[in-house]
């Protein structure tokens, strides 16, 4: 069922591999409310996959299903060729999935560096006692992790705020720090929940650049939710369109743009 071998080359020369994650007939209910209704789609290795839709369409719920925070009421999540059983969030993080949040979820009182270091937590194995003493294994581990974190800091150009408490940063930079923390985990699959929300044009351009660079440089597969249609159409390789919990479109940006259902959902249509 999973055609791992299959893949394609994009117009700008990027290699897209086989399917890494497949959502099969996902339905998600909260009591009587149906947030997601029987949706299936897949995410391929190395691609930038967008999920779009009007407010309340169920995009964030979908992302939470992918990240394992919600367990679907019906349907199956397949990751790397295996059906994923219900898991604790940290177990999923260890599988190589990292995310950012729509409403920034950083530790406000901690420095940028410490916040990004938390992205490495799932990789740290030394115990509480040796961490407290900071000797031997704990020290070596921290140095190795700090190197990875510093590469991320360099990559996202946030060296100047390394020691600044997050609470003092402007919104655009906080978003970038969140991305840094997610990247520090060196994820295979990166989930971005509205990475450009509330940003000005310049910040958006920067963020686009970073997302493309992450994908290009580390080959990270990216799934993102975004409202800004211009951004989505420029960035992504394939787009899933949701409306009222249903999938109404799926395909490359150009195809989706001309899909009449999508136009209806976005521009509104006269209902009887």
């Amino acid at each position, binding site marked *: 069922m999973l055609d791992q071998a299959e893949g394609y080359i994009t117009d700008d020369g990027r290699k897209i591999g086989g399917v890494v994650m497949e959502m099969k007939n996902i339905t998600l209910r909260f009591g009587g409310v149906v947030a997601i209704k029987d949706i299936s789609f897949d995410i391929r290795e190395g691609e930038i996959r967008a999920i779009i839709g009007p407010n309340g369409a169920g995009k964030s719920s979908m992302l939470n299903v992918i990240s394992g925070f919600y367990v679907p009421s019906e349907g199956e999540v397949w990751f790397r060729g295996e059906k994923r059983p219900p898991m604790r969030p940290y177990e999923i993080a260890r599988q190589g999935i990292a995310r950012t949040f729509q409403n920034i979820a950083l530790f406000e009182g901690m420095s940028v560096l410490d916040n990004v270091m938390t992205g490495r937590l799932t990789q740290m194995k030394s115990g509480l006692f040796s961490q407290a003493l900071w000797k031997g294994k704990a020290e070596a581990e921290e140095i190795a992790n700090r*190197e990875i974190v510093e590469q991320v800091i360099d990559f996202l150009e946030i060296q*100047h705020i390394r020691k600044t408490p997050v609470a003092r940063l402007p919104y655009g930079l906080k978003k970038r720090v969140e991305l840094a923390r997610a990247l520090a985990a060196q994820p295979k699959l990166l989930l971005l929940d509205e990475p450009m929300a509330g940003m000005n044009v310049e910040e958006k351009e920067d963020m686009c650049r970073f997302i493309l*660079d992450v994908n290009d440089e580390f080959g990270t597969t990216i799934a993102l939710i975004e409202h800004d249609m211009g951004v989505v159409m420029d960035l992504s390789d394939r787009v899933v369109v949701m409306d009222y919990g249903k999938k109404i479109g799926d395909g490359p940006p150009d195809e989706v743009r001309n899909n009449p259902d999508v136009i209806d959902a976005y521009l509104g249509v006269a209902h009887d």
Partner: protein
Amino acid sequence: MAQTQSGAERLLSLPALLHRNATQFGTAPAYREKEFGIWQSWSWAETEKEIEALALGLINLGVNEGDFIAIIGRNRPYLYWSMVAAQAVGAIPVPLYQDAVAEEMAYVLGHCGARFVIAGDQEQVDKVIEVQDQLHQFEHLIYLDPRGMRKYEHAHLHQYSHVQDQGRAAHDELIGELKRRQAKLDYDSTCVMLYTSGTTGKPKGVVLSNRNVIESARNASGFDHLRQNEDILSYLPMAWVGDFIFSVGQAYWCGFCVNCPESADTMMTDLREIGPTYFFAPPRVFETQLTNVMIRMEDAGRLKRSMFHHYLAHAKKVGGRILDGKPVGLWDRIKYAIGNALVYGPLKDTLGLGRVRVGYTAGEAIGPEIFEFYRSLGINLKQLYGQTEATVFITVQPDGEVRADTVGVPAPDVEIRIDESGEIFYRSPGTFVEYYKNPESTASTKDAEGWVATGDAGFFEESSGHLRIIDRAKDVGKLSTGAMFAPKYVENKLKFYPDILEAVLFGNGRDHCVAFINIDLTAVGNWAERNNIAYASYQELAGHPKVLASIQSHVEAVNRSVAEDEMLSGCQVHRFVVLHKELDADDGEMTRTRKVRRRIVEEKYADIITALYDGSASVSTRTEVTYEDGRKGYISATLEIRDAAVVPVAPHQVAAE
């Protein structure tokens, strides 16, 4: 020490100096750069290996003797190596301003006919690629940071480290050729070509020989007793002659260490971590630092604040005198020592100036208060006067003879004369060779005997023998009343107020003077925040009545001070306007070194000048602006024009001049 020559080897080129340093101070650090949060360091011996690998790689790529290699990027060891490697293979390095827009770059690259470009990152590479169709001689582009360029067409694009790897691989085949080319270098070979920003017209390529650079570096290092163990922070544009002399000329002559910041934004943190012993900054940096200190002190507790002000007042009284070695009473010295332990020392450390033995400011006039502030803390901050054509040094202030209003005595081996019109001429070992491909300009600037016209008007003060600069000679004019018009004099007085960033005075040939003013967004913005004044944009803040009132009080204070100078009392500002946008190099209103291009400003804002003279109370204007990426847009504004009180000047005083 550094000046001793090893054996029969003669130190007539940068590669020769490099070899001397690698031999004599092999393990001493030559370069440091903060990357990934850690200071990475290269010893002189390692540096020689790196430069050799790059030089071999350049030969391998086909660099010929006499080729021009443009170097674009922020201060990084790799780019400094590029300059030395370029010289080692007989090519001529041409550092460019990294913030130049693509069009400006196209002119310079086309003018020198650069066959090779070494660029720092994708941003610079993109600019070169954008204009490469206009460049006929351009062939290969080498880049440092590969990020974002994986998908670029690499036929003529090479990663720096790969060029070095290829150089190392071809070591045995090419080392003979490299040695042969290096042996040909002498004092008359071109060391570097630097483009002067030029307040008028197109940039000119100033050719500096090894003699110019090495002799100037040697003289200046001797003058300030620089040693091998100095540390400097290199953060000023690599295309600027000052950076070339400090970070290459003097660093290679003395063998001291060049430290490169992690990024432009981390400069202040890096400054503090390195604690340079020899420091160079334009007045702007000192002003910003002082403003930050004062703002932060406002937020400090009462005890700290009163301690700070108490000891600063004491430093103001005696600090400068102690630094100059003048007699100071014992009690004052003890009190200064306590102040040093409690306030000055920690403050200097915070500023990153705790270890500075020699500091220079140049490029623009520095406000006397700012200058005195740093000196009173015990920082040996001095002024020098120089230009690209002189390989920086014309006059320098010797230790112990430092004043805010003069620029010092002639530097070693520099001769100075002042002609009848007041223009300053000099002749020195640093006198440039020529303007590249521009014999007319060369001839009009440098005469047959080697005297170079500076274009500045000034005079030697009889009491001290120090040079004082009045203004650019071509800017000095006359009002229609016959009084002298020296705009810079008044502009500097205005700019010494922290909330005034830039001022431009007009009045040549008219009967009175008027001025444009740019507010300083940091200082005024902070003031607005403290006073609960809301604003949405620079433009709105600049037009706020309270801001205008405060600027008006500054203008009037300057008028009173100008009126005291008999010669220049006619230059008082009668009317002024606070501009709706900052004068910007991207709009051509300033040079890249932030000097105002007077003529262009005068043309561009002719409507505002007219309004200043015809007595109208406001003026509506529309101005073209260029964004950083080269796109253009317009901003419109209605500006209020204010009258400033002037001190009446008795006509006989003017006539007396």
